[in-house]
């Protein structure tokens, strides 16, 4: 509702653009406040091109305020790591991967509840934007969470520090695998490929499946298009 009100008032704001351009120029002077649309106290107009007289109609204004659903998504995005911290205190939530999935499902459900419970009519762009924001936060958290949980290089470092004394390459490998060897690590990573149906083993030899070949081609394409070569 607030968003559609804002849209309606947007027309009114355009009508006073000439008046506002003076306000924009005024913001460059010390001691003057930023321009605030007097007809809509919730709409902050970013003072652009400070110090320049704006030609009416040349530059538009920018609404920096999120819609209600987007505000809910931003709040839930900030709460997401806190929710993961909370779930870490509950043993029944399982391992790191399951806990992350549980946290993701929880914030999506909370977002749906917020979209229903927030007063006023929902704006499609607002809800869609909120979903994008929530998706962004979840992907960012997953990248950081997976680095902590499954990061090879980081775990190598923590293993060396935990050992408390200098290690040779072989000792470091054993410390990294907490007494095991790199074969255990290899089997763990291969289990992922085999479980995903990308690799099969036969007579002690590994071979990619057609799915594995397709994924490998996709990986090469992504590497090429992201500049990794």
């Amino acid at each position, binding site marked *: 509702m607030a968003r559609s009100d804002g849209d309606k008032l947007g027309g009114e*704001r355009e009508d006073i653009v000439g008046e506002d351009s003076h306000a924009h120029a005024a913001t460059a002077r010390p001691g003057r406040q930023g321009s605030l649309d007097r007809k809509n106290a919730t709409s902050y107009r970013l003072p652009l091109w400070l110090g320049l007289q704006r030609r009416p109609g040349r530059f*538009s204004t*920018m*609404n920096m*305020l999120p819609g209600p659903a*987007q505000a809910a998504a931003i709040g839930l995005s900030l709460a997401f790591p806190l929710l993961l*911290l909370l779930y*870490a205190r509950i043993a029944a939530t399982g*391992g*790191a991967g*399951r806990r992350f999935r549980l946290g993701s499902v929880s914030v999506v459900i909370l977002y749906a509840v917020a979209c229903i419970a927030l007063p006023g009519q929902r704006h499609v*762009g607002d809800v*869609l*934007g*909120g979903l994008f*924001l929530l*998706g*962004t936060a979840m*992907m960012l958290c997953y990248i950081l*969470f997976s680095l*902590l*949980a*499954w990061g*090879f*290089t980081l*775990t*190598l*470092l*923590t293993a*060396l*520090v*935990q050992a408390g004394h200098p290690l*040779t*390459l072989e000792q*470091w*490998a054993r410390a990294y*695998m907490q007494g095991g060897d*790199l074969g255990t690590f290899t089997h*763990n*990573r291969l*289990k992922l490929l085999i479980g995903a149906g*990308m*690799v099969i*083993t036969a007579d*002690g*030899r*590994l*071979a*990619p499946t057609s799915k*594995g*070949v397709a*994924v*490998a*081609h996709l990986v*090469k394409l992504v*590497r090429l*298009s*992201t*500049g*990794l070569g």
Partner: protein
Amino acid sequence: MSFAVGLAAVAVFALLAPALQFMARARAWPLGPVTLLAIATVVSHGLGVMLGILFVPQLQYWDAASIFGFCVMAYVFAFGAVYKSVSLGILLSLVDRPDRRAPLSEIADGQVPDLFRGRIGNLVDGGLVERSDSHFTATAAGRNMAGHVGRLRRAFGIGDTSLYDFSD
């Protein structure tokens, strides 16, 4: 229209990010891939906002930022997945062989130890680990980082093996 502005910024990012990676490699810039991604994000987002201010009558910043953030994060996600993944490294090495087959022992005894040495090289180059003769020791920066990682892992209830837990 604000979403379209966000998408235009994504297009700029999708061109700028790989271009920066190529240029950094070609000219040996002392900037890491993640730093280059951050530069591409800031520049393309700034350009997108400028474009919106110039051409959209009433730019809704969060509409544009939401789709931009989502697409850029998806790009970073894909980038991170293919950048240094051990599993995908094994898969690629299998596919690249002429007969697309390899003995398990060759992967376990050859490729994985090579990956291990490569990552240790990254830690040494990054100033987190130092080598003296045949021994490796964490530097002060390395111990500091390991301390932060350990605290975060404990807070989030994450183990310190980096192995996938298939019971999940």
